[in-house]
């Protein structure tokens, strides 16, 4: 049953892909339908009526699009169901498909870990399926065709599901690459812009490199497996020498990290996510990165055998680098989706940091704390999936209404788009990890893990982990600043452009429904984290082999993972408190209706003429940070003043800011130059002169003869 649901998810997403192919076949279908009727095929009148309506040239496109997304939605639902049921029943389902190599059929396995990620993907896909129809409604089939979009969306989602199902290296790689390739097409979807093409190319190449690293990693394990079979079961009971295991670990980190977007192999992410359609970038950023995370966990915690604490340290460092780097670069962006992409880098960094913690604790012999860290990581993955989807979909709505993604073109949207603005606020509060929202809970758990450092004996780790905690704290604070900026500049203040002035709330119920769903989940999980955590318990029992130190104290009300007197958090109580105090003070102060406040002009120091150019925009907002952390970015600031005839008076001043990523200058451009240089050198071999070619063959012959004799 569980397996059936799991397969159903894959099949449904694939079928949505196939349905999308029909979008241009309206005429064919209609005639076929008419023929069938003439043939005397009788349908129930309701169905017939619906078909007649749906096949009419005017309606067909929107109807089919709705159908496609309906399929996706059902896929998402079945994924949620199967994920939940496997988590609750804490069972392991296995199967084999008749596909693949003659001696290596596709092995399928659904356990708590993959079930959990199934749940994540299912939620995201469900939301997207609500969001999609409204978003793609007015696509011009000629310009950017829905055929391509729908087709590859379906394949992409199916690929992600298959990655979770895979239980042998071959199937895993196929599913993995399917996911990558499909998303590549989605990135290059609107390929009229050169930027999109560039992003797609970068993405494809890095995906390929990552896949190669992963294959190599699997190969290393397989090299030591008993009968050289590539099933994960065989991997599970091979034990590698520490050296080889570490090699495999590094390869996996490279491969999966490249997909997850760890610094410095993150550069494809801020390029690719902004250019894809919003609901796709929501899936890529919110979910695909999690699939990479899943692969990494599966690889390191399960297939690789014993964990080494050094790996944990590596993760800690890389994670800290990514989280800080990600948020720093996010702060400097003014393209909303680019900003969100960078903040994904940050969150992934946080997740990997906490994973590193749990690795360290595991190797140091404290599995219960390792379990705590592991859960913190998974929980944060879950939360990130929720609020990052919400943010990207919100960005989609805004792009749809404001026709821009530059946050400095917006402003004042809170009045023009009331619903969206509220939902977006929820997302911002979650990602800024404020209490009562889900982001806070996972961060809280992360801190709890870090604070258990005193059980460790190793002095290096004892001093390293607090530093990591400090980095984590700084990251959180920066994230809050970053999203205050985002929300403030986009939704508050005066409109900064005519687009923003004209903007109005979307009329599409589906879009808002998707946003509300996610926002609701963010809040619910934030207030009642216990439910998710109790699900996660099974996962950590399966992977780490240990539950929370204090499962009993984890219920809907209390959250005391370690022990009640050591640390506890009762979000419902806090919520109650906030409502109480807020309500009372509100009631008390508003009781006197004579004191109803009055609206007047904004105070303008008596000069008058406040306009929207006087308020802070994101560049101005971030100025102090640019000053303080100047070396983090490759800043290129230009200020050119035109001084007027009056001395010491500036008639016109223009400010330009260019923020670049260090990794390009230090890593990627050199590589490209290297490859091209080598190519040029080797090109010299082929002079075009036939006599030289003859000489080649002559020399080769002589050489080989000399070799053999």
């Amino acid at each position: 049953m569980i397996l059936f649901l799991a397969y159903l998810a894959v099949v449904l997403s694939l079928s949505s892909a196939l349905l999308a192919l029909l979008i241009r076949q309206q005429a064919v279908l209609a005639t076929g339908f008419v023929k069938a009727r003439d043939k005397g095929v009788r349908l129930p009148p309701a169905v017939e009526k619906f078909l007649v309506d749906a096949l009419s040239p005017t309606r067909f496109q929107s109807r089919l699009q709705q159908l496609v997304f309906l399929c996706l939605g059902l896929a998402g639902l079945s994924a949620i169901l199967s994920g939940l049921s496997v988590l609750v029943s804490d069972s392991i389902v296995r199967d084999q498909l008749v596909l693949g190599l003659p001696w290596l059929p596709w092995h399928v396995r659904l356990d708590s870990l993959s079930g959990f990620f199934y749940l994540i993907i299912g939620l995201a896909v469900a939301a997207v399926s609500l969001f999609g129809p409204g978003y793609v409604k007015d696509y011009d089939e000629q310009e950017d065709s829905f055929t391509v979009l729908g087709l590859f969306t379906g394949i992409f989602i199916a690929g992600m599901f298959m990655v979770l199902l895979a239980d042998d290296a071959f199937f895993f790689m196929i599913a993995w690459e399917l996911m990558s390739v499909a998303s590549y097409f989605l990135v290059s979807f609107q390929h009229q812009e050169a930027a999109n093409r560039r992003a797609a190319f970068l993405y494809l190449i890095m995906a390929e490199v990552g896949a190669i690293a992963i294959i190599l990693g699997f190969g290393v394990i397989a090299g030591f497996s008993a009968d050289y079979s590539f099933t994960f079961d065989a991997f599970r009971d091979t034990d590698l020498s520490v050296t080889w295991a570490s090699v495999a670990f590094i390869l996996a980190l490279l491969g999966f990290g490249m997909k997850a977007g760890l610094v410095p192999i993150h550069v494809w992410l801020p390029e690719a996510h902004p250019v894809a359609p919003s609901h796709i970038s929501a899936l890529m950023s919110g979910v695909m990165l999690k699939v990479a995370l899943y692969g990494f966990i599966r690889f390191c915690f399960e297939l690789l055998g014993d964990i080494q604490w050094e790996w944990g340290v590596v993760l800690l460092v890389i994670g800290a680098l990514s989280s800080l780097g990600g948020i720093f670069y996010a702060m400097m962006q003014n393209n909303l989706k680019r900003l969100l992409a960078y903040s994904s880098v940050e969150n992934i960094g946080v997740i990997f940091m906490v994973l590193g913690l749990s690795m360290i604790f595991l190797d140091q012999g404290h599995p219960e704390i390792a379990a705590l860290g592991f859960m913190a990581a998974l929980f944060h993955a879950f939360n990130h999936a929720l609020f990052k989807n919400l943010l990207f979909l919100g960005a989609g709505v805004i792009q749809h209404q404001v026709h821009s993604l530059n946050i400095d073109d917006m402003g004042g949207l809170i009045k023009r788009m009331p619903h969206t603005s509220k939902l977006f606020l929820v997302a911002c509060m979650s990602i800024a990890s404020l209490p009562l929202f889900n982001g806070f809970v996972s961060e809280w758990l992360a801190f709890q893990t870090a604070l258990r450092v005193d059980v460790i004996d190793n002095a290096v780790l004892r001093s390293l982990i607090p530093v990591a905690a400090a980095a984590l704290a700084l990251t959180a604070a920066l994230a809050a600043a970053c999203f205050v900026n985002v929300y403030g500049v986009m939704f508050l203040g005066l409109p900064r452009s005519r687009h923003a002035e004209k903007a109005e709330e979307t009329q599409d119920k589906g879009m808002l429904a998707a946003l509300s769903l996610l926002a609701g989940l963010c809040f619910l999980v934030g207030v009642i984290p216990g439910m998710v955590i109790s699900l996660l318990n099974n996962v950590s029992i399966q992977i780490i082999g240990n539950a929370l130190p204090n499962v009993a104290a984890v219920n809907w009300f209390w959250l005391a993972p370690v022990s009640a007197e050591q640390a506890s958090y009762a979000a419902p109580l806090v919520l109650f408190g906030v409502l109480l105090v807020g309500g009372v003070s509100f009631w008390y102060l508003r009781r006197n209706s004579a004191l109803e406040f009055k609206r007047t002009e904004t105070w303008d120091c008596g000069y008058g003429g406040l306009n929207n150019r006087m308020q802070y925009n994101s560049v101005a907002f971030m100025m102090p940070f640019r000053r303080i952390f100047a070396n983090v970015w490759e800043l290129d600031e230009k200020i050119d003043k035109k001084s007027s005839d009056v001395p010491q008076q500036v008639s016109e001043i223009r400010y330009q800011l260019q923020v670049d990523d260090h990794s390009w200058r230090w890593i990627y451009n050199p590589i490209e130059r290297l490859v091209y240089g080598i190519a040029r050198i080797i090109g010299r071999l082929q002079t075009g002169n036939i006599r030289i070619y003859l000489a080649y063959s002559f020399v080769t012959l002589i050489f080989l003869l000399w070799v053999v004799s």
Partner: protein
Amino acid sequence: MNWIFAFIQTLLFIVLAPLLVGWVKWWKCRLQNRKAPSLLQPYRDLLKLTHKQPVVSHTASWLFIATPYIVFSAMILAASVVPLISIDLPTAASADVIVLVGFFAIARFFQALAGMDVGTAFGGMGASREMTVSTLAEPAMLMAIFTLTMAASSTNLASAIGYVLDQGMVLRPSFVFALFAMILVAIAETGRIPVDNPATHLELTMIHEAMILEYSGRHLALIEWASAIKLMLYGVLISNIFFPWGIAVDFAPSALGTALLWLLLKLAVLAVFLAITETALAKMRLFRVQEFLSFAYLLGLLGLLSHIILEASR
């Protein structure tokens, strides 16, 4: 029983906060040879503000109006989890010290947003600066607090303070670091000289005031009151974490009485210190603040490390 007591204690916080502000003001005036207003002046101000009709800009949105209430209740929740005169505090379990920092974060988040809501240059400036300062201050504070929580191996304030109390008079280098970090952070977060000047409304230097420039009437009252509570919160944190002696462990009236006296004494002393520093020091330039705060951050980290390496090593 103890729930009621927790409620009373929170009320005590709310009530005493303006008094503390007045006390500081009084001492500053004294130190600057000015005639001091009465200690109750802050109460009068609040009362006056609540009876004025608030004025709100046309461009302001619901967020602007909701913010004061949110900030106020966030502060009160924060107050409710900090042991004031007794460590046997049930509410302390509902939210540990990390959540406490979270409450401050909420208040700051909304204040900054409200600052940007109206769309003046001041609001944005204030928000930007406030976020900058707090971005640097928050991790420092966490570091300082983690030093305590690691020593007590608990992030629950009540049990942590209890632990320090049981330890008795022990000199811990880590605590010294943490204490100084905490003081620096407190100065920055409560917007005191040398980081910010609560009395000024000079456009270019103000941070906190710039955000709330547009507020008036009861809204302003709530915000002022909230910041008063914040000041007191930091005071209580410093005094009760690092000098917990005298705090009651149960509800014996005598113990509570002495605890209250002790607390008032500690706060009074702290306030005097604050007044002295504010008189002695000049406000520093905005871009010197990060040196100030990264120093605090460093201290906190040092405290943490010295605890890990020197004290807790086995």
